[in-house]
């Protein structure tokens, strides 16, 4: 039992391990020895981490079932791209404004829909994502199915890394704060949460808006990394992809989301020749997961390097 509560936080070893990993990857980047192909994967991994961690805030930590993350990502991507193309504002301002618009949309949509529970909320958010996509397909300014081209490719891998880092730090700190406990209590039991004086409506909308904000940022980074976006980048399957990462990593586990995202970004690339079967791979993984480990890789716990060492027989700490 004590083990359960202790493992909820990542340990110092993990921080050290991550720091070393980030350092070595960046040294490789700076040295210029990293092939462009790997840089691309690295960029997508970073963007996916932002998406997965922010969806985890809504679905895992607060326990609301949102299926519309690609929609918020699209809003951030289009708004920031249009700003860059037409107004030529600095990248940071374009990204932030895109994220803010996504967050506002999250609030507008969240207020009426968050009264819905479970399946109904999932369907409502799914519908929202599709409406956003259809609007983008039909607006003059977004150029329909052809999408926006000639977006300045001003995002660097470093910026993606930085934003991913900020997203993770923000979410971890939030989880440990009073607000975080309020969010968790909603997932645990909404009736009890309200009875204890927690404004559940406020916190649900807060989680929704914050998740949308970061998804919007991810979208903006994506647009300025690719230089080209179209509605097909933000289809329903994109939301599912992000959801798979969160579920696979464990709803509520931040390190779980990160590990699952890295695996699910690299794996399909490594199995390139099967790339058309990517969604089959995801579905297969999900089914296997639900059968053998329904709580996800990490459950609600955080990754502990000490535990990993122990797993491979490196002793390190007392045996359980």
């Amino acid at each position, binding site marked *: 039992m004590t083990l359960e509560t202790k493992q909820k936080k990542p340990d110092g070893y993990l921080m050290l391990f991550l720091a070393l990993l980030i350092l070595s990857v960046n040294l490789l980047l700076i040295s210029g020895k990293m092939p462009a192909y790997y840089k691309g994967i690295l960029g997508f991994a970073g963007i996916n981490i932002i998406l997965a961690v922010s969806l985890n805030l809504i679905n895992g930590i607060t326990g609301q079932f949102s299926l519309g993350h690609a929609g918020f990502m699209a809003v951030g991507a289009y708004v920031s791209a249009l700003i860059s193309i037409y107004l030529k504002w600095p990248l940071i301002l374009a990204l932030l404004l895109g994220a803010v618009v996504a967050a506002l949309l999250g609030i507008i949509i969240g207020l009426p829909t968050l009264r819905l529970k479970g399946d109904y909320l999932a369907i409502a958010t799914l519908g929202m994502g599709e409406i956003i996509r259809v609007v983008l397909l039909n607006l003059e300014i977004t150029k329909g199915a052809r999408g926006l081209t000639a977006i300045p490719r001003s995002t660097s891998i470093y910026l993606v890394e930085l934003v991913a880092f900020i997203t993770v730090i923000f979410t971890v700190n939030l989880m440990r704060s009073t607000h975080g406990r309020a969010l*968790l209590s909603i997932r645990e039991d909404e009736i009890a949460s309200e009875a204890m*004086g927690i*404004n559940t409506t406020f916190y649900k909308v807060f989680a929704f808006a914050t998740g949308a904000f970061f998804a919007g940022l991810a979208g903006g980074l994506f647009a300025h990394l690719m230089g080209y976006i179209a509605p097909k980048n933000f289809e329903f399957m994109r939301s599912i992809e992000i959801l798979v990462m969160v579920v696979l990593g464990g709803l509520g586990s931040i390190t779980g989301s990160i590990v699952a995202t890295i695996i699910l970004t690299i794996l399909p690339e490594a199995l390139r020749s099967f790339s058309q079967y990517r969604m089959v791979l995801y579905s297969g993984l999900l089914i296997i997961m639900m059968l053998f480990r329904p709580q996800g890789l990490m459950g*609600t716990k955080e990754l502990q390097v000490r535990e990993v060492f122990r797993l491979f027989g490196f002793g390190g700490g007392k045996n359980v």
Partner: protein
Amino acid sequence: MLEIKNLHVYYGQIHALKGVSFVVRKGEIVTLIGGNGAGKTTTLKTISGLIPLKEGEILYQGESITGVKAHDLVSQGLVQVPEGRHVFPSMSVQENLDLGAYTRKDKKAVKEDLDKVFHLFPRLKERRQQLAGTLSGGEQQMLAMARALMSSPKLLLLDEPSMGLAPLLVREIFNIVTEINSTGVTILLVEQNANMALSIANRGYVIETGRVVLEGEAASLAANEAVKKAYLGG
């Protein structure tokens, strides 16, 4: 302390409360008894702002709280323990209790209340690291009550705390309710177990299909022939 005047509540077309009125005075244990579907839960939920009312008035400490949201009432000392055992299952007992004090800033007083709560519920103290979802039914009910106490209530609304518990545990829960009351907390107790409820209450109201049909001192209600026949199994 609490005054309910002519409460009318609807669920869509269903007229669930048809003019309920009663009072709870400071320091009392007042019980609301009645069969399944009589409107007891609806009454409590309306008081704590979870359901809107169509007509009537609710006064708490002399002021109208009609339309005030549930989460705002907690910091004013009006706290409900909902029907069924609503604990936070994958949090420990301690974390559940911490969340009970969510609206409070006075750390020192919270710590003192934690000691008091553990004194009332020694079983929870032994299990403070255990996950709430793994507690027995009785222990979960105790935790739900203990957690409510952590918010420092002046008026505690209890919705069927004895539901589904073994007779011995029911006795224990009711003893604790009496003890809580003796520390100065006013209690409005909703029960189907009229026998037990009337044995610890000062006064009671009998509610049937959305109306108060009988009221009086607990002892005289327990002796009332109609009440005996309908609710006391004799």
